[in-house]
């Protein structure tokens, strides 16, 4: 086991910004809009860096797939403590169609190429909310997965992962190499302070193309339209139970 951690980070529209649908309904407006690192990816980077600080791992590599601006996101990961970065260049139409399947193929290829022992990603991205990339990556690599992790610890030659599930918490023990997806309560990410940003400018970010990794990016999905959700209708107050029943009957619900 090499002790290398591969962390996936995604550049998404900042969570506080109000989204606007493009007039041609092909997507949302992204030009000039404030972007930042996906909050779950920040938690993933923090966990990876902590593993290296505890000397359980040797190297943290931050990966991002997308256009030139992704380099800023990788820089932030480097400022938080990652050792080096890999920017997988995807732009234009390819980037618009980039989904979990393509990204997981890229992550799987990189994990093999870099001989990683662990792949950590955020559980989902706040723009797509797909919650698929981590799981697909594990499947493609045929590695065990510990998803929705709220605690990760090294247990012999494997990992003990505390998972947050609907019923409560589940403890699993998985062998390495493995894939882990970070949930909200895994840790509180550190700030990327200015001295670290300055140091990060000297750390390496390698650029690769998906074709170099043997990954083909065609999507099996076609976006037909993107629209605003329908306006919420105002509710009606009723005076009595009889009124309620009458209204429900009138609307055809009863």
């Amino acid at each position, binding site marked *: 086991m090499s002790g290398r951690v591969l962390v996936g980070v995604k550049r998404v529209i*900042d*969570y*506080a*910004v*109000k989204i*606007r649908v493009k*007039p041609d309904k092909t997507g949302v407006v992204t*030009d*000039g*809009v*404030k*972007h*930042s690192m996906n909050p779950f990816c920040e938690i993933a980077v923090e966990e990876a860096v902590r593993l290296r600080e505890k000397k359980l791992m040797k190297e943290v590599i931050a990966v991002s797939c997308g256009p030139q601006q992704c380099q800023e996101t990788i820089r932030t990961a480097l400022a938080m403590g990652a050792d080096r970065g890999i920017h997988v260049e995807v732009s234009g139409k390819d980037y618009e169609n980039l989904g979990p399947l393509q990204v997981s193929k890229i992550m799987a290829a990189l994990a093999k190429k870099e001989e990683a022992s662990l792949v950590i990603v955020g559980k989902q991205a706040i723009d797509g909310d797909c919650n698929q990339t981590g799981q697909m990556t594990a499947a493609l690599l045929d590695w065990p997965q510990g998803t929705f992790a709220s605690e990760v610890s090294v247990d012999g030659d494997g990992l003990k992962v505390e998972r947050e599930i609907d019923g409560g918490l589940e403890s699993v023990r998985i062998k390495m190499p493995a894939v882990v997806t970070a949930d909200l309560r895994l840790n*509180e*990410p*550190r*700030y990327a*302070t*200015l*001295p670290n*940003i*300055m140091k990060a400018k000297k750390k390496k970010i390698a650029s690769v193309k998906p074709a170099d990794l043997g990954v083909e990016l065609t999507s099996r999905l076609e976006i037909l339209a993107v629209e605003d959700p329908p306006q919420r209708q105002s509710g009606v107050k009723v005076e009595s139970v009889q009124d309620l029943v009458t209204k429900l009957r009138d609307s055809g619900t009863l």
Partner: protein
Amino acid sequence: MFPACKYTLQARRCLCSVTALQRAHSPSLFCATRWSSSSSTTPRITSHYTVYPREKDPRWEGVDMERFVDEADVVVVGAGPAGLSAAIRLKQLASEQGKELRVCVVEKASQIGAHTLSGACIEPSALQELFPDWKERGAPLHTPVTEDRFGILTEKYRIPVPILPGLPMNNHGNYIVRLGHLVSWLAEQAEELEVELYPGYAAAEVLFHEDGSVKGIATNDVGISKDGSPKDTFERGMELHAKVTIFGEGCHGHLAKQLYKHFNLRQHCEPQTYAIGLKEVWVIDEKWRPGRVEHTVGWPLDRHSYGGSFLYHLNEGEPLLALGFVVGLDYQNPYMNPFREFQRWKHHPTVLPTLEGGKRIAYGARALNEGGFQSLPKLTFPGGLLVGCSPGFMNVPKIKGTHSAMKSGMMAAETIFSKLTNENLQSETEGLCVPEYEENLKNSWVWKELYSVRNIRPSCHGLFGVYGGMVYTGIFYWILRGKEPWTLKHKGLDSDQLKPAKDCTPIEYPKPDGKISFDLLSSVALSGTNHEHDQPPHLTLKNDSIPVNNNLAIYDGPEQRFCPAGVYEYVPVETGDGMRLQINAQNCVHCKTCDIKDPSQNINWVVPEGGGGPAYNGM
């Protein structure tokens, strides 16, 4: 107390929090000074370390307060038009003359342009000087002004006023721009010239040499929790030292406020007067006339309240409208609500048809300078100087400040460069003093321009209010070009102008209809503003009991009305009678109006953790 070296940092923090807990249970042990500024009935509001120093705070005992230090030749605070022009000019000169210069720019917004808000109709003169090939470089000046309209509004009608050439608001040759995009473009040019740009890092403290000159700045600390105690993620900001520090924080900068006091820069000038500008961007349907510039005065303001509206038709593909309302902050009625005046104005019969069927896509607000010539402070001090709207070069009747801000940045760069490269340089202080900057500015068109319009704003204080001002402009500016030998004075500090609430009548504002006019909270959401919630509120009060005892009692809490982001709310206390001030610091859009207009001058705006604040896109 505890021999700190024996314990690890973790253990030390544990011990500190345990002792803090013990103290909380026996409040008499707290040193009396901590609680003196809030009486027993006033809940504690402020927890910021600028009001409660950490040296005296037991929760901070043993915390490592050392800062990382780095040196640059010039540090610029603020990546707005002035700051970026200064940085760009420095690097242009350095590369022309083959000299090496390290220029660092710090900016509190997470990306450059995100805190920029302006009308804006700009004069390209300064940009032309900075980049004669700005068109080829793709500067986003896409909308030349084709039509200029000015009107006086009454409740139902509009009286058109002709804009003759020579009047200050004639816009021939100017461009309507989205200033945020222009600033982002300037940032790209700066990066190409190898200026080091650091968005997301706010300058929180000015550093001084032993001899009192400015040494540089320190960026904000991170990881302080809401009650002022250190979190696990606490990290000190970093120190950036420079030979000269350029302060370009924009209107009413918080570091500039400290510098005025420290170096007594406002000794020989009048206090600065301000206005608040609220702005929205709309996508409209049919009434789009690209290149049209419209201004109005009058309704809904009365003749004694300075202010008016702007409505610019942008030509950038989509039918976009940049519109807004400006209200002078010297208003007297504490019931005045600039946000609601703006919403009300949109319902005027001559404005409503343009907006009907359209969609609002952005909202924001910012204070702007109105003092002009009379309020210019001393611009230089040992180790630094002020550029842009911070000292305030805005030409108020022209409603333009970007060109003079950029020019001031460029002049600062030129004078600093010649000083830095002067081999025979002898400086009395460790931080360089650059008085030549002020002298050169006085000989430039910026000074002449501000001088010629100096009397227009004060002339609006007379019996006929704004209309008197218009008559004055017609006679003395249009005909005589501002050469009259007298200089009128302003009324004084904006915060002193409020009359007590009992002497004023509340204003009845119409309810927002959700299509043309909107409520405050949905507007604030549109600005994309947010801050890390677990940090001390950055709207600090020198005395926590003054808001209820003074602002609410005498002026009925004007801050709940003039804040364009709903930060200040007077809510009933949980138990018993009375009200308390609630500060929703997360909503803040960094407009600075509260620091300016607070009648008790009790609110001190300090910079929050960098990266927080509005997320304007091309405002």
